[in-house]
């Protein structure tokens, strides 16, 4: 089935088996191997990409449903030689060990910071009608969809604080 979308600013047009997930289309058809397949069931977050600016699990989304969408993967965050501020913060804080979850962590962070900037609340937000303040507790709750089996969470938290201008 013919499907067209934009990936990291480039138009892509693919003839897809409807069973193809967005994750498999990115990795196997477009050779963008940054997005990782961890659990393949939406439980680990390693496949997180941005679709029209919002973070989703690419493993649970059929590629044919993304006609016309603007998709951003880890490969699309840097501008020329300049790393995205979230990528730079992860480097500075050594916010990974094996690195397998890192592309998902970084894409999720970019999406999460936008959600917070848009004033979205989380479960740990005391006053649902107040402005969003990204405390450490808020960051942890909002990032709970991304697992790190090396448990680099303290550094990931520190990196997100820096990237979010909170440190």
């Amino acid at each position, binding site marked *: *089935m013919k499907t067209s979308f934009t990936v990291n600013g480039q138009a892509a047009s693919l003839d897809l*088996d*409807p*069973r193809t*997930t967005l994750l498999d289309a990115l990795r196997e058809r477009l050779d963008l191997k940054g997005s990782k397949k961890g659990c*393949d*069931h*939406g439980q680990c*977050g390693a496949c*997180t990409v941005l679709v029209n600016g*919002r*973070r*989703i*699990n690419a493993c*649970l*989304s*059929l590629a*044919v*449903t993304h*006609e016309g969408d603007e998709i951003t993967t880890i490969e699309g965050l840097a501008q020329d030689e300049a790393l995205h501020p979230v990528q730079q913060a992860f480097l500075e804080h050594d916010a990974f060990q094996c690195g397998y979850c890192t592309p998902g962590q970084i894409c*999720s962070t970019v*999406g*999460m910071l936008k*959600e917070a900037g*848009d*004033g*979205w*609340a*989380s*479960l740990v*937000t005391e006053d*649902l*009608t107040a402005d969003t303040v990204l405390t450490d507790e808020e960051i*942890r*709750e*909002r*990032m*709970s*969809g*991304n697992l790190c089996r090396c448990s680099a969470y303290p550094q990931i938290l520190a990196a997100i604080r820096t990237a979010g201008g909170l440190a």
Partner: protein
Amino acid sequence: MKPFTYERPGDVATALALVAEIPGARFLAGGTNLVDLMKLQIEQPTHLVDVSRLPLAEIEDTAEGGLRLGAMTTNSQVAADPRVRARYPALAQAILSGASGQLRNKATTAGNLLQRTRCPYFYDTTKPCNKRAPGAGCAAIGGISTNTAIFGASEACIATHPSDMAVALTALDAKVETQSGAGEARVLAMEGFHRLPGDTPHIETELRPAEMITAVVLPPPPQGGQIYRKARERASYAFAIGSVAVAGGKVALGAVAHKPWRAEAAELALEQGASPAEAMAAELKGARPDGHNDFKLKLMARLGAACLTTTGAGDDQ
């Protein structure tokens, strides 16, 4: 996944007609549960009718002073809506306590109601399950699972409904609006929308074949406090092992039954002047734990009493 065909009609009438006409066709919304179950071949649709882009994604004020949540609103969208946060905090809390940010960005209001149980025996295709194969038997009964029903279970099924959102909607007395092929529209009360398992646990709601949820309607917010609290086995991103929604004098319990469980005995006790602990004790008199899930009695007694105390439910009765 088994092979299937896919199409994305532009209007509700076409979507309804397609699912009515094509054997094995299913609606696809956010897909966060359906696609996962298709990977496991627990769900095997022959044709997917993508309804995610139908014009059903608005949140509108109703003339009665409530809100109409379009079926295709995302969980994130509903939880972020200022009207929901200000007037239906129990609903915002319930949604935000479910899944992860990524999943809530895809999952829809209608899809949340129609998600399947997370009973491990439903997922384990090497074990019998009356939901997967009616008449096969239930491996959860006598199995090792602890997150099973204490209310309304049957000899065919002891699974629970996993939604947080639906528990809050039940306490808020929401209504489900639907349409079906012939253009027929229905309105179902949330309380009666999901079914108890009986001897047909594979039939989980009162929806008819090829009937589509088009909206969930919230009545004006009730007088009194609201809260949703959830107990789970890790601090975030896990299904409930027990949850409580309170909205005014209405109480609903989650992860204790095949449907969001309206705690009518507790509500009645509160009306008659019972304390929060007494009200929960009245409700839990009707519970039938199975030996593996006995912990839910104490959990729900404490969680429920805490929620009723926090909201002051019953204080002015």
